[in-house]
C-alpha cells in the first residue's frame, strides 16, 4: 500500500463507521500483569457468552495493553471510561462474567466489582474519578489500555502516524530543533538531551547511520517499557521513523529482551503491518524517505541495556560495554554513527511533532520536560504503572496515586533508578521528581522503577539485595565492577549475618568510591549507589547491625528471633497452622510457644497473628 494523508483519513472514517455499530465497547486489560491474574479467561468467557446471546454484532470486546492498575487486575473498562471493574474473575469467573453481561445489556452497575477507596466507604464507577488515574497525565500511555495493540487501523484512527506525515513535510534540521526546544531528555536512565544526541548523529560523517530503540528493560520491579511495547508498539515505531528521517538513517533496530515474549510478538506484528500499510519500507508517504526496522532479541543480560554492550550484542558479539571515548553517535554499530534511545523516549516523539514543542515544554520542571512513566511497586497499596508530569512530588506519587503504604505502616524509603539508583528517605517526600533532583539525592531517574519500602524493610538488607543482583549481572569485563562489587556484597552480607566489624562502613565507602571512578561503564560506575545512598540516609541502621548485632526492622534472620507474648496469645492456633516448619506448639486456647531450634524465621506467624502476640526481638 502506498500511504497518503487521504489513506489515513479513509482508514479513520472506516474505523469510525465500524465503531458506530457497537452500542458497547468492553476493554479487557491483557497486559502481562492482568494476563497472569486471568484476564484472558475473562476475555474468552465473555466472548463465548456474547456469541451465545447473539450480541457480538453490537458489543465489541477488546484485548488492550496495560491499564496500569495492576494491583487490582484483571481490569475491565466499559464504554468510554464509563465504568471500571477490578479483579474481574478472581473470586468466581462465571459470576463475574454474568455480572458483566448484566452491565452490558441492562446498564446495571455491579457494586462489588467497582474500585473501592481506601476508607472503604466510597466505590468509584469511572476510572477518571479514581485517584490513581486522576493524578496522572497520560501522553506516552494515552493509548495504552484503549487500543488493540495488534490493530494498526485503530492506532491510525486515533491519530497515529499523523506525526510522521507531518514530520516528513518538515526539514530534518527543523525536527531536531523541535526536539531540542521541547526539552525531551532520554528516558532510559541518563537523561541526556535527545535533540543534542540526534544532532550529533546527524552531523557525524558517514552515509550509513542507525537508530536503535532500547527495550532491554532489566531493572528489578520495572515494567514501563514492557507495557509500552505490549500496549502500543506503533507509538515506538512511529517515533523511530521520525527519528530516522531527522537523523538521516534508513535502518532501525529494536533491541528487546526475549523474556518479554508478548512485547516481541506485538512488535513483530506491528512492524509487519506497518510494512503492509507502507509506513515502513520504501518512499514512505511519497517523501522519498526509506526506512525499515529489524528486531533483535536480547538474551537477558542486564548489561545489554547499556548502549555499547547492546550494540556489541547486535553485532553478534558478547554483550560487553566498551569505552565511550569515541561516542556511539559517531561510531556505534559496525562503527557507523548510531543513535540509541529508550523506547519511552521514542514514544514521546510523535506527540511532540503532533502537538508542537511548546506544548511538551509546557509540562514539567525547568530542566525536565514532559511526563515520565514509573512502575510503582513494593509496599504501596496501588502497585502498577503510572505516567505523571515531571515535578510531581514523591508524596503525591506514593500517597495520592499509590494510595499510601500497605497496612498503613510507616513509609521508610523509596528506591528509584533500579539497581544503579538509590534509596530516598522520608525527609524528601515533598521533593519534586525530575532528573536532576533525584541525582542530587544520590539516586537517579533511571528508567523509572520506583520501589516503596516501609518500616519493615531493613535498609542493609535492601542494599544487599541490589548488590546480589549486580554481582550476578556484572558482565565481568572490568576489574572494579567484577571483583569490587562482589566484595562489597561479602561485606554487607557479613553485616547482615551479625559479623560486621568496626571499619566496615568506611571500607565500603572507600571501595564504592574506587568502583564508581574506576569502572568501565555506567553500570559499574553506579553499582555502589544502593550502598552509598543507604549509608548516607540510614547510617544508624548499619551501625546498629555492626555494633549491637541487631536488625531494627526485624529482617536479617541471623539477628532476630520470634517470640510469642504469653499475655497476648489467645491460643487461636492460627500461627501454628501457618508455620511451615511446624515449630509452634500449643493447644487450643493455650498459650503457644515457638521452638527456636526449629524456627526458620520466615515471619509467617508474625504476619498472621491478629492479636499482636508475635514479637520480633
Amino acid at each position, binding site marked *: 500500500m502506498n500511504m497518503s494523508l487521504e489513506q489515513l483519513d479513509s482508514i479513520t472514517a472506516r474505523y469510525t463507521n465500524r465503531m458506530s455499530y457497537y452500542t458497547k465497547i468492553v476493554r479487557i486489560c491483557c497486559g502481562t500483569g492482568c494476563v497472569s491474574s486471568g484476564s484472558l479467561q475473562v476475555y474468552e468467557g465473555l466472548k463465548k457468552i456474547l456469541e451465545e446471546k447473539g450480541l457480538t454484532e453490537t458489543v465489541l470486546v477488546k484485548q488492550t495493553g496495560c491499564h496500569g492498575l495492576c494491583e487490582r487486575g484483571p481490569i475491565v473498562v466499559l464504554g468510554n471510561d464509563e465504568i471500571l471493574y477490578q479483579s474481574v474473575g478472581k473470586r468466581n469467573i462465571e459470576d463475574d462474567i454474568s455480572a458483566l453481561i448484566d452491565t452490558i445489556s441492562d446498564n446495571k452497575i455491579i457494586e462489588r466489582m467497582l474500585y473501592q477507596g481506601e476508607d472503604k466507604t466510597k466505590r468509584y464507577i469511572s476510572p477518571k474519578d479514581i485517584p490513581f488515574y486522576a493524578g496522572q497525565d497520560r501522553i506516552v500511555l494515552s493509548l495504552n489500555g484503549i487500543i488493540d495493540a495488534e490493530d494498526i487501523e485503530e492506532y491510525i484512527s486515533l491519530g497515529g502516524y499523523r506525526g510522521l506525515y507531518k514530520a516528513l513535510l518538515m526539514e530534518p534540521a527543523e525536527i531536531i530543533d523541535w526536539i531540542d526546544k521541547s526539552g525531551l531528555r532520554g528516558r532510559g536512565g541518563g537523561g541526556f538531551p535527545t535533540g543534542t544526541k540526534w544532532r550529533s548523529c546527524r552531523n557525524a560523517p558517514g552515509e550509513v547511520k542507525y537508530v536503535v530503540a532500547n527495550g532491554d528493560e532489566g531493572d528489578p520491579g520495572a515494567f514501563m517499557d514492557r507495557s509500552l511495547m505490549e500496549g502500543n508498539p506503533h507509538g515506538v515505531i512511529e517515533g523511530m521513523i521520525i527519528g530516522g528521517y531527522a537523523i538521516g538513517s534508513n535502518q532501525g533496530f529494536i533491541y528487546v529482551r526475549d523474556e518479554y515474549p508478548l512485547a516481541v510478538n506485538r512488535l513483530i506484528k506491528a512492524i509487519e503491518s506497518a510494512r503492509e500499510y507502507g509506513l515502513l519500507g520504501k518512499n514512505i508517504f511519497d517523501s522519498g524517505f526509506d526506512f525499515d526496522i529489524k528486531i533483535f532479541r536480547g538474551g537477558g*543480560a542486564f*548489561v545489554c541495556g547499556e548502549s555499547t554492550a547492546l550494540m556489541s550484542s547486535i553485532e553478534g558479539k*558478547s554483550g560487553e560495554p*566498551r*569505552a565511550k*571515548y*569515541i561516542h556511539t553517535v559517531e561510531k556505534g554499530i559496525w562503527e557507523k554513527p548510531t543513535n540509541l534511545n529508550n523506547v519511552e523516549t521514542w514514544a514521546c516523539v510523535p506527540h511532540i511533532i503532533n502537538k508542537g514543542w511548546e506544548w511538551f515544554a509546557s509540562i514539567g520542571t525547568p530542566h525536565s520536560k514532559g511526563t515520565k512513566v514509573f512502575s510503582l511497586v513494593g509496599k504501596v497499596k496501588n502497585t502498577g504503572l503510572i505516567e505523571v508530569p515531571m515535578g510531581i512530588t514523591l508524596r503525591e506519587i506514593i500517597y495520592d496515586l499509590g494510595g499510601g503504604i500497605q497496612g498503613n505502616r510507616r513509609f521508610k524509603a523509596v528506591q528509584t533508578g533500579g539497581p544503579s539508583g538509590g534509596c530516598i528517605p522520608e525527609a524528601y517526600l515533598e521533593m519534586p521528581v525530575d532528573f536532576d533532583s533525584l541525582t542530587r539525592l544520590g539516586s537517579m531517574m533511571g528508567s523509572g522503577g520506583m520501589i516503596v519500602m516501609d518500616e519493615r524493610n531493613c535498609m542493609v538488607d535492601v542494599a544487599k539485595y541490589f548488590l546480589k543482583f549486580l*554481582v*550476578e*549481572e*556484572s*558482565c*565481568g*569485563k*572490568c*576489574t*572494579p565492577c*567484577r*571483583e*569490587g562489587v*562482589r*566484595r562489597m556484597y*561479602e561485606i554487607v552480607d557479613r553485616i547482615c549475618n551479625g559479623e560486621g566489624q568496626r571499619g566496615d562502613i568506611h*571500607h565500603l565507602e*572507600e*571501595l564504592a*568510591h*574506587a*568502583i564508581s*571512578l*574506576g*569502572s*568501565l561503564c555506567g553500570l559499574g560506575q553506579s553499582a555502589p549507589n544502593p550502598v552509598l545512598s543507604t549509608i548516607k540516609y540510614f547510617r544508624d541502621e548499619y551501625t546498629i547491625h555492626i555494633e549491637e548485632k541487631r536488625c531494627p526492622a526485624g529482617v536479617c534472620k541471623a539477628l532476630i528471633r520470634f517470640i510469642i507474648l504469653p499475655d497476648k496469645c489467645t491460643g487461636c492456633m492460627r500461627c501454628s497452622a501457618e508455620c511451615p516448619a511446624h515449630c509452634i506448639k500449643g493447644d487450643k486456647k493455650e498459650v503457644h510457644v515457638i521452638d527456636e531450634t526449629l524456627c526458620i524465621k520466615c515471619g509467617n506467624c508474625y504476619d498472621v497473628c491478629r492479636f499482636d502476640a508475635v514479637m520480633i526481638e
Partner: protein
Amino acid sequence: MVEFKINGRKVQGEKGETILDVAKREGYDIPTLCYHEKLGSDGRCRLCIVEVQRGNRRRFVTSCLFPIENNIDVYIDSKDVILIRKTILELLLARCPGSEIIQHLAAEYDVTETRYTKDIDKGKCILCGQCIRTCESIVGVSALCMSGKGPAKKVTTPFDEPSDVCIGCGACAVVCPTGHIYIEDRGGYRTIWRKKFELARCPQCNRLHAPIEQLEFISKKTGVNIDELMICQNCK
C-alpha cells in the same frame, strides 16, 4: 600535533595516539596489565587509569585507550588515581593470590595483603583477554573465548570442550601476562586447553619441536610443503 599536559608538564603527541603512548615516550611510568604494545587493549584491567581534566570537568579514563586531545590536563598519580590502582591491585591479589606479577605490582603501591577472602578457583587469570586477541588476530583461529559473566566469567574454549580449531601453538601462553595458561610438553605430546597434540619430530636432528597440527595449519596458510615444515628452525 596535539599538545597537552601530564602532571603539569607540557607534552606533545600525534593525533590518534593514546595518553599511554605519549606518557611512555616521555618516560612516565603507568602500570598496565591487559595492555600489549602489538595487540592494543580493551580497557579491562583498569590499572592504567589516569585523571583527565578539561575545564571544570574531571574524569577518570584508561590511558591505554583515551585518544589525546589539545589542552587537557592529565594526572597520572593523583590521590584518586592511586586509590583506584590500590583497590584494583588488592582485588586482584584476592582473585589471583598465586600471581607473582600482581604481588610485585601491588607491593609497588604498598599493598602487601588483601582484606578479602582469597579465591582458590581462578588461578592466575585476570581476564585481560590478551590470549583471546592473540589467538584471533595473530594466529587467526579463534579457539578461545570468554564464557559466563560477573565473577564466574572465565577464559575457555567454546563449551569447555577441546577446541576443533586450536592448533596447539601456545601463543596464548606466551602472551599471558600472569603465566596462567598451562602448557605441557611430555612424551612426544603437547597438552593445552584440554587438548592433546602430537609433536613433530625433526627428521634431521630428531628433536620434538612443534605440534603437527600447527605445522599443517601453517602449510595450509602459506602453501609451504609440510615436509619442509617438519624440519625444525635449528636445522633449516
